[in-house]
């Protein structure tokens, strides 16, 4: 082969090799870091047609509405537990730390954590968006029956001021 061709072949092979390595490493890393999303009813009844349920110890995300009156705080520490619901079953989430500013009862939230037993999740992170209009889309989708109307889309009431 001509040296020029040889060099080009070498360059192409290096690129292909690097890319393959990078993609393989990426997929491997991704596999470990993918967290499936569940709603409380999916967690209890199983997900999809096969009704697959997560195993205790599995990392996952769960999203639902915080049940009103279910937030229980430990008087001496920052431990807190609350219940999540979408259309039926209830799942309890435990967490230690500061809840986000917009965490409220009746509000949709997403928690990231580890499944302890069939209906308990130990959260490492609780997310509620900094926006009153926000409803996690996964939750909104799961709650098809209950329509969430963001305040800006609500029809202006006459007393909200016009003229």
């Amino acid at each position: 082969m001509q040296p020029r061709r040889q060099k080009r072949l070498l360059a192409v092979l290096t690129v292909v090799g690097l890319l393959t390595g990078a993609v393989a490493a990426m997929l491997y890393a991704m596999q470990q870091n993918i967290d499936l999303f569940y709603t409380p009813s999916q967690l209890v009844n199983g997900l999809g047609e096969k009704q697959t349920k997560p195993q205790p110890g599995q990392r996952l995300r769960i999203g639902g509405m915080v049940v009103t009156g279910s937030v229980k705080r430990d008087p001496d520490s920052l431990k807190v537990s609350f219940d999540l619901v979408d259309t039926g079953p209830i799942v309890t989430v435990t967490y230690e730390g500061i809840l986000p500013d917009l965490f409220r009862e009746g509000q949709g939230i997403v928690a990231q954590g580890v499944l302890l037993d069939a209906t308990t999740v130990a959260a490492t992170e609780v997310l509620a968006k900094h926006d009153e209009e926000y409803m996690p889309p996964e939750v909104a989708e799961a709650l098809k029956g209950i329509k969430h109307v963001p305040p800006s889309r609500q029809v202006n009431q006459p007393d909200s001021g016009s003229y």
Partner: protein
Amino acid sequence: MIVEAGQLALTFAFALAVLLAILPLYGSFVANKPMLLLAKPLAFGQFFFCLLAMLALIYAFRTNDFSVINVAQNSSSTLPWYYQITASFGSHEGSMLLWVLMLAGWTALVAQFSKALPLQLHGRILGILGLINVGFVAFSLIMSNPFERSLPFFPVEGRDLNPLLQDFGMILHPPTLYMGYVGFAVAFAFAIAALMGGRFDSVWARWVRPWALAAWLFLTLGIMLGSWWAYNELGWGGWWFWDPVENASFMPWLAGTALIHSLAVTEKRGTFKSWTVLLALAAFALSLVGAFLVRSGVLVSVHSFATDPGRGLYLLVFLLLVVGGSLLLYGIRMNAVRSQARYQLFSREMMLWGNNIFLLTACLIVFLGTLFPLFHKELGLGTISIGEPFFNQMFYYLTIPFALLLGLAPWVRWKQQQLLPLIKPFSLIAIASLMLALGVMASMQSVQANLGLLGLLLGAWVGISALAEVMLRLRQFGSVSAGISKLNASHYGMTLAHIGFAVLVVGVAMTKTYTVERDVRMQEGDSTSVAGYEFTLTDVYDLNGPNYGGQAAELDVSKDGGYVTHLHAEKRFYRIQRTIMTESAVHARLSRDLYVSLGEELPGNAWALRIQVKPFVRWIWLGGVLMSLGALLALADKRYRRKSSVAKQEVANA
């Protein structure tokens, strides 16, 4: 009236953009000089009318004209005046107008500062920029009109600006970021214009370089400001979340960084041509991907605007047209371009090639990590999320070889480099970095093999190597003092930017390793000790701000019995939006930040507080600032302002 005038100005801008897209481009193919000469006034006119439209919108915000939907939803009469101005680009509609204004601004700058270009190329570049702006102004007019009124019924008070955006960082972050995003349109236009004409050489590269550098400068600054804003405003002390929208700005940055390095090869050696053109196309295409991701609502993020499928579809079609059209042109024309330069395996060319490979791999990782959940969901495989650990792990593996290469590359000659002469200086640099890294760790009384040590080693390697390389070049002029004024500004710029990268790496690694974070429950008078600092909650009281209430906490911090500082953290409740916001208290020093945010009120007259001690976190932003300064220095290089012989001929002919 003023609002309608703004609407009219935007319509005029649209008309001028259409003319700009048609006339000079047509003129360039039929060699019609008057049409080509029209490009410049059209570009100025377009910018003027975009500016008028923006000013009209700001006027509507300042006069609290709540009959304008955009104003009613994003402002209020109690909002401080500077936030009323920034609110004009806080919403989807307003930010799109800002985007259009920036694009028109870049177009006008190109019209003004590219006198050295041949007239035909000049006309084509402006024409292509006009074509892009046609798409965006039309989007602004049709899909997201910022001037839309809600007459006859309108509210007497606005819904206020999202409290998150009521921050100093928000005044600067969007304009700089957009300057960066849109700036890559200029490099894109240069690439397309050259593809049309088929002329690629070092002269072309020298024309594009300052524009690509300027766009990169703004994008770097914009991302840094965004990170700094998130750190201050989101209240949990993070500075990068791998949030889809952050990733959307990071992708063009990575491609842009690859572009400015590849341009160096094209300018100096006349090779890597097709590669450089592809990068110029990619950088702008990724900016458009970013715009699509933020504005279509396909991805969930802190930043995303309210979703609207119509807008998403428009942007997707626009994106496909731009990417498809440019790639088609690229495929047709690029065959003709041949790079002739020869170089060996161990040469500057190969080093920069390595840089590009790493940057593009990083870009690919971010791209896949951001979009994989989307594909996964669309394929019906369930909703998933790919979080920080994935990105952190991948960037950990990428940064190590990248930084090692970066320390080596500036020493390597073009074409061919002998290995032997480099062994001695690099052994010295390696020993010096080891000593420096261990020295820093010893001064922190924590010598151990961890991420922090790795970051310090890599940072020292890159930093010392960059400094030593400059000294070497200066000595080549005879003496250091004689060389200082002779070395190119762009060389200083490169060194400064590389040192900035070193500083950034050190900041990231040290913050990741040594941050101590504690969530504590405190009553007034309680003390808690975090990383040797003693935090005492002295007082909690009610706040009364212009458009918010809430509580404030006062803390005293001491270390080893000595007073360090006083911290003031707030938890604000914005009345109109009924939103709670955390205003964290930060005491910043180069070596560490003390960061306290006030959490919720707990039963028993107590408060939850998040207390963090974050060593070296300032270095992250300092690194970004140094990189931007490096780009600024490189821009100041004299050779970008020298007129080319081609232009002189044109002038002589005219």
